């Protein structure tokens, strides 16, 4: 479904991604883990077209999207929940969701119903300004907003960041749920333990390079990973 092939991404002179390749097959949950500054967010931003790679190629649904503008990828079935949520703080929950359906106008009502079923807390706050939501609610809104475009692939950048443990559990339950309902997921996480537990496969990024890859279970057992990311 998604094939990233040898991409190199620069911020001016900073070489942020070095020959990164990865693949996501239909129906998988793939985790991308790594320390702060490893290049995880850069990878997602390059896939979704917010950044450009100098070399290499990105294929999505058998189409080369290396030069496709970000806004066009939404209607091709890609959704990106950015790090730090980036909900529209001055707009209401409903308006945020409507924007999520910007390219798939026909399904607004149905989509909003689905999101409210998945995130009942949002329903009670639908006319509230997003800036007044709690962090967890904003994360749910960001995920709900991404679901409004009925994506085939959803990429999430640290959805558990800054949330209380109980909320982290909830967010991971929702991810698992999404996966079971047929959505393919590329998950970026610092919480390596949780991520490896639900992932079919995972990649480890270190200083802009893919260091390791394998199934979630394999990586969770690997000594290297245990030492670096799982606290022993």
């Amino acid at each position, binding site marked *: 479904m998604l094939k990233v092939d040898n991409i190199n991404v620069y911020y001016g002179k900073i070489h942020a991604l070095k020959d990164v390749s990865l693949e996501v097959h239909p129906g998988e949950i793939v985790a991308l883990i790594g320390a702060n500054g490893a290049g995880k967010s850069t990878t997602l931003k390059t896939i979704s077209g917010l950044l450009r790679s100098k070399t290499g190629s990105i294929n999505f649904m058998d189409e080369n999207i290396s030069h496709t*503008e970000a806004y066009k990828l939404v209607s091709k079935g890609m*959704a990106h929940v950015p790090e730090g949520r980036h909900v529209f703080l*001055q707009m209401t929950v409903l308006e945020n969701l409507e924007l999520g359906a910007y390219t798939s106008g026909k399904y607004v009502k149905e989509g909003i119903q689905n999101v409210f079923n998945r995130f009942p807390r949002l329903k009670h706050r639908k006319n509230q300004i997003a800036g007044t939501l709690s962090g967890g609610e904003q994360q749910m809104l960001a995920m709900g*907003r991404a679901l409004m475009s009925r994506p085939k692939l959803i990429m999430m950048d640290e959805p558990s960041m800054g949330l209380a443990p109980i909320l982290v559990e909830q967010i991971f339950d929702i991810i698992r749920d999404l996966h079971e309902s047929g959505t393919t997921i590329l998950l970026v996480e610092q919480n390596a333990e949780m991520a490896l537990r639900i992932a079919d496969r995972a990649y480890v990024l270190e200083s802009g390079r893919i260091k390791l890859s394998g199934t979630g279970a394999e990586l969770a057992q690997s000594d290297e990973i245990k030492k670096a990311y799982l606290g022993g």
Partner: protein
Amino acid sequence: MTFVSNLINGISLGSVYAIIALGYTMVYGIAKMLNFAHGDVIMVGAYASYCTMIYLNWHPLLSILFSIVVCTILGVVIEAFAYKPLRRAGSLAVLITAIGVSYLLQNAALLIWGSTPKIFTSVVNIKPLSLFGGKLTITAESIVTVAACVLIMIGLTLFTQKTKMGKAMRAVSEDKDAAELMGVNVNTTISTTFAIGSALAAVAGVLLCSAYPTLVPTTGSMPGIKAFTAAVFGGIGSIPGTMLGGILLGIIEIFSKSYISTSLSDAIVFAVLIIVLLVKPTGILGKKVTEKV
């Protein structure tokens, strides 16, 4: 009665400022840039209307429409050629470019129409309203200007709150990348904003010259700067704030002209701006800007 008539003149002048300021506010809100050429678009709009009325004998309404079309195209072209290539450049580069565009338009106008003032014929040919047995007269221009301003504000508010494009604009103004991830074409949205702002500039130009009929290539620059001041004063980025800022500025200007000194009126206007910004840096109705890292 002079007080009331001054107040009316102030509101009317302020309405012109408000219409111009709305253009500044929209462009600033969405593209995060100060389009210093905005005032000169006003001037081009006034010339477009003048020429079609005088040389081609067009009906005033038709000439206004023509002027709106010319300015809309001009605004979109300026954005596409001068600002779009600088989308990722620093704000100083953009500001300098905007100043360059402003001079370009003024000098082009100087070449085409020369420096001799043209006397604009008012597009409103209705008799003034006479009240209290002639003690108070309100020009039809004033009434039309204020009405246009109110209509524009209502229209813009509905547009940004209710329409899909309007919501996309608000999204882009808050967070460009996130809007792009929703499938919003940010470039198109910015062009549309320039189109709307420039169309408003055309209306403002025609109304301004109907009330103050001397038209020269620099006609737009002072009102442009004042309208920008008004936008900052009321709260740049906020439609009601901008409108309020424009009207207050008009009132302050007319009152200082008639009660203090004609030559000091501009100084007083800017002094008030400075005081307001010292007390409330975001302007009267401005929202707190949430800068994200």
